[in-house]
């Protein structure tokens, strides 16, 4: 922010100096042109006088004309050409005109350079600000599980608790650790995505096995929370994307769905795929808490977490859907979200390009 301010001031001073300099230059050139014109006029007047003197001394008119061709000579009299003054004025105007155009061009070029630099600086400042913001949010996100962990540990050390109480504290601490671990993974993912440091491969990925892999990872957790998975992904649908990225986006959407269903004490998550206009769509539908249609845009923003039920044991990082959107953008795909309203479930649709025939 400070750099921008310094730049703005420097640019302003430079522009003012340049304008003054150019103004002075035009003024100076103008004076110069006037002086030059006067000199030419004086010189011409002297030529006319010299021609008259030669004529008066008896030099033949032809001879005088040869020597001083710019002077009009007729009947023994030397006179100034009426064109001469016009010619001088024209020349003078041309010169001044040229200076003005040159200065204007110079100032324009200078302005353009400044604008380009200012834009670059502003963009950089914005990036820095976003990074600061990101850092603040990240540390903020860590402090709550840390505080909970510290509280549990200090409770254990300070009080004499019954074995079941101890057990519940230990479970709580393990959950806090898992939360922080998930947070670290997602932050690393999102930072890499942000910086564009991910080299996403492009290859044919069989969607049904990717879905089966991800669902398999969450089956136990889903059973505990009375959530059933239903999958309808035909075998043989191949998307053209990075196999790891496909896993990550499906996993994030499934985790998001689990978190949305868990507070209701159970429900269903349906994953279905189909081929549509050269793309392959995978929809992840849940019967969970849903969201207001107005909040759709907010869902995919970094660290945005919509209102959640305070009794729920779910801790969102606010990064999952951000990662999904970014990864889909990088993969040339799309993600969209839809819900009929709070408490009415939600549906997320991923769309990838279909794998070309030759890559299969």
């Amino acid at each position: 922010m400070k750099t921008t301010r310094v730049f703005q001031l420097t640019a302003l001073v430079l522009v003012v100096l340049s304008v003054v300099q150019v103004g002075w230059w035009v003024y100076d050139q103008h004076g110069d042109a006037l002086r030059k014109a006067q000199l030419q006029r004086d010189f011409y007047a002297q030529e006319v006088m010299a021609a008259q003197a030669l004529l008066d001394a008896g030099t033949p008119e032809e001879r005088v004309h040869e020597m001083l061709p710019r002077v009009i000579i007729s009947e023994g009299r030397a006179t100034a050409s009426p064109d001469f003054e016009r010619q001088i004025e024209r020349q003078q105007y041309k010169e001044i005109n040229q200076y003005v155009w040159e200065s204007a061009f110079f100032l324009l070029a200078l302005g353009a350079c400044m604008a380009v630099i200012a834009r670059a600086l502003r963009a950089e400042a914005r990036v820095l600000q976003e990074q600061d913001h990101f850092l603040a949010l990240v540390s903020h996100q860590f402090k709550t599980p840390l505080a909970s962990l510290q509280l549990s540990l200090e409770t254990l050390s300070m009080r004499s608790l019954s074995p079941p109480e101890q057990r519940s504290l230990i479970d709580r601490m393990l959950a806090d650790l898992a939360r922080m671990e998930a947070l670290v993974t997602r932050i690393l993912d999102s930072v890499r995505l942000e910086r564009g440091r991910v080299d996403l491969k492009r290859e044919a990925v069989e969607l049904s096995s990717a879905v089966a892999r991800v669902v398999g990872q969450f089956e136990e957790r889903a059973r505990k929370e009375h959530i059933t998975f239903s999958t309808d992904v035909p075998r043989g649908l191949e998307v053209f994307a990075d196999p790891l990225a496909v896993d990550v986006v499906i996993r994030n959407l499934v985790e998001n769905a689990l978190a949305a269903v868990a507070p209701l004490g159970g429900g269903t998550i349906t994953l279905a795929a189909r081929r549509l206009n050269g793309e392959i769509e995978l929809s992840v539908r849940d019967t969970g808490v849903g969201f207001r249609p107005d909040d759709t845009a907010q869902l995919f923003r970094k660290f945005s977490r919509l209102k959640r039920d305070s009794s729920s044991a779910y801790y969102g990082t606010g990064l999952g859907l951000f990662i999904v959107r970014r990864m889909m953008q990088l993969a040339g795909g799309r993600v969209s979200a839809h819900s009929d309203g709070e408490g009415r479930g939600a549906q997320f649709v991923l769309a990838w390009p279909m794998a070309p025939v030759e890559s299969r």
Partner: protein
Amino acid sequence: MNAPLPHTPPTVLVVEDDPHLAAGLAENLRAEGYRVEHIGDGRAALEWLRKEHCELVVLDVMLPNMDGLTVCRTLRAEGNNTPVLFLTARGDPQDRIHGLEAGGDDYLAKPFHLHEFLLRVRAILRRWEWYQTSSASPAGAVLRFGGNEVDFRAFKARSFNGVTQDLTEKEAMILKVLAEKPGEIVSREDLLERVWGYDVFPSTRTVDNFILRLRKRFERDPAQPKHFLTVWGVGYRFLLEGEP
């Protein structure tokens, strides 16, 4: 740790949206003998506080629906002086000041030590209890000086010019501390300690600002105070009669 008070246990409202942290706080407060209520949402907490009574609110700053600062500010604007201990994940001095300006009594940054948390809870309740006990007797409930009349129980005052003043909790407490020993010098540190607790504010300048506010409310000429006198380099002296 021993129970804080022998008679009816004070009620502490824990407003924290993180279930683990809230559960940990509630368990520990209960173990100390307090009654505990828990709410995980800012707006719901405000609604609760409008209807119910508690001795202390442990208030997280980042809350769903309404942030803790707004909750506290709204409470104070509505004349609710229940002490508030802020919990927040941000710990820089600027945020501390925001919390205290919103009308908070103390401020604890996450992660914190359980011991410190309990000490602070106890300190706030003790200060508050002192204030209430000392305002309970007819002699302690009302303070009259220089044409002003202060009602400590209602947090209201009528100043010499007939204007009714709503006192903030801190203003009332400062006034209370000063009025306990009229004519004696009370140091800034003493005022800080008794009204805010040991290390809440970054400087004793805050006390000076509060004294300025009291002078504006109760002195006929705030620039030439007769009741709230500065003792240079030490603190303040309060005179009931006013300096001749």
